[in-house]
């Protein structure tokens, strides 16, 4: 039974999944950069949630919940409302569509991002794989 999203258990479970998934390891083998996922309040979520993941060459080196994005100088910051994050995780919103329609805001080096869209998409696959229940 996978933990409920959002929770620290869920975040740890994602980190573990990224470290054990062979497909992700292959696709993300050239990825170098930590990310902050900023989940903005909407629906049943009242406060901003910030997940930090240090991703390096197909592995997750560290996962943490932050109080502010300033705690880590992450290479990429991905922001979306809780509802849109939930829709992405449930497969109801395509991640590329979310980016192209301003439902998911990306900040960081665009050259790295565009070269690694497959990594981003496979990251989302891993997220979906470990998510059975969303608050």
């Amino acid at each position: 039974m996978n933990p409920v999203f959002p929770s620290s258990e869920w975040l740890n479970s994602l980190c573990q999944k990224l470290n054990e998934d062979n497909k992700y390891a292959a696709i993300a083998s050239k990825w170098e950069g930590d990310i902050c996922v900023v989940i903005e309040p909407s629906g049943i979520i009242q406060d901003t949630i910030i997940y930090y993941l240090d991703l390096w060459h197909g592995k997750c080196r560290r996962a943490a919940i932050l109080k502010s994005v300033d705690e880590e100088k992450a290479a990429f910051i991905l922001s979306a409302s809780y509802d849109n994050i939930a829709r992405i995780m449930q497969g109801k919103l395509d991640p590329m569509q979310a980016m192209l329609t301003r439902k998911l805001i990306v900040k960081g080096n665009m050259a790295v991002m565009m070269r690694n869209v497959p990594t981003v998409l496979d990251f989302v696959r891993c997220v979906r794989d470990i998510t059975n229940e969303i608050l």
Partner: protein
Amino acid sequence: MQAILKIDLSTRQSESYIIPEQWVIDYIGGSALGARILFDHLTKELDPYSSNSPLLFLCGPLTGTLGPAVGRFVVCGKSPATGLWAESNCGGFWGPELRFSGFDGLLITGISEFPLFISIINGKVEFHHAEDLWGLDTYEIQLKIKERIDQPKAKVLGIGPAGENKVVFAGIFCDHGRTAGRTGLGAVMGSKRLKAIAVQGSGKLPLAQPEVYNNIRSESNRFLRKDLVTQVAHDLGTASVADYSNYLGIMPKKYYSQGIFEGSENISGSLISEKILVGTKACHGCVIACGRVVDIGDGKRRKGPEYETLVSFGPNLLNSDVNSIVKFNELCDMYGLDTISTGNVIGLAYKMFADGSINQSDTGGFELEWGNLSTLENLIHLIAYRVGIGDIMADGAKKFAKTFGEEEAAVQVNGLEVPYHDPRGASGMALVYATSPRGACHNKSDYFMVDWGQTDESIGINYFSRQDGAEKAANVSRHQNYRSIFDALVLCLFSNIPIVMIANLVNTATGYEYTPEELILSGERAWNLKRCINIRLGLDKSNDKLPKAFLEPLPDGGSAGYMIPFEEMMDAYYSAREWDKETGIPTENKLKNLGLKDLVKEFI
């Protein structure tokens, strides 16, 4: 709207012409209004190179303002490549300057007895001998003409040797690399012995509510700056899409025949930005600045290739050397060649050589080996000057293939070479290519972006999987109608702002009161009018087709194995468009609803 200047090159006379207001209300501007203006001129019998053949340069109501990516103009006429409706729009600074000089457009007919160029300085029209400029490239003429007329700030548009030699994919160029590249209107300009047009003005643009407009355009630009596409296009240029396009198997390789090419990752927008980018360039007033300035190691600042050129001379020809692509791009710009068609026809020749359809006796001794860069460069020269095999290639892919009995080998639709978005990876492009009013075109609807997820539910453009079939046909037609508004305004496709904002800009600029729905209806009207023009020019349902290459699956890559359900998609498309499934002609009811019934009686 400001006047259109009618110019007869045979008599060297000009006169102002006011467009009937109802036409402006119905079609707004750009190529939509252009279609209405040229409706009576374009007949099946009209030779694109004849004296009567029109060449119409037209701006939109926002051109020259500081609105969001609005600095474009369009050129319209009858295409020597397709025999159909021709339009090609262009950025840079020429369009705004034309409006500053007091005109919203130029309608040029006639043929000059000698090579000439025209200057229009604050409304004053002069004709100048250009015998000494004939043969010069598109970069040289800009400098020389400014010097000749002693107007260093003038904006010059012109043709190179390719246009003079009537290469059917010759374009019209301005501002060192900004291009109205498609449909061969540079050849039409060459046939008129018109080398260039210089414009300069200091007039104020007519805006119905200037203060309100300025507030809205500031808000629009702020909105646009925050858009992901803006950020990516600014940072990486249009070639930003290369990596993802390659991954999905949308980027063509080896003349649309394979899905994987080992060197593809070397020629992306990302790589250009990291290795050779030294600056960016913007069109008039644009906050995006997608233009690239690069240095390939020789200290010279050159225009960097956009996506189409990058693929055209890159993976399409199995070339992974980005520096060579920069040079081929520059060569084509200087000669005045459209890079999409040039790379396409060269790819076709390489394929036919590999297949044994042509040999060294046909090519003048050249061995057309994939990736051979010196041969590639030679072919560009031969095409521009119509020498040897280049003379046949200069007539376009369709005629080249037909000359050697291999018409189906050409990846073209209705005589226009296909751009570099393979519909087997983004199936909406199948309908887009098959039904575009100017032949295979990725700009009448950049639906590959919708297939990636650039949707807008507020105007009914919804999400479908990139390899869905007939279920997305109505979505494609709505997107075409939507993009027709951009062609009318002449708005850059990267101006990714809500349609309500577009309507507010148009209304405060023109004084009319369009709702978003009325704008889209105007786009649909223009789409159907261009369809009717093409039917008059000889197009019928049998023209709505794809090249044979796209009806076979790719052997590998991100779209391997997928077969486009083309017939089903077309059936659904005709239904969505309310076009007769037997003839491909818009139904009487559709024409009536669009207010076109009286105009196009001949089709009812």
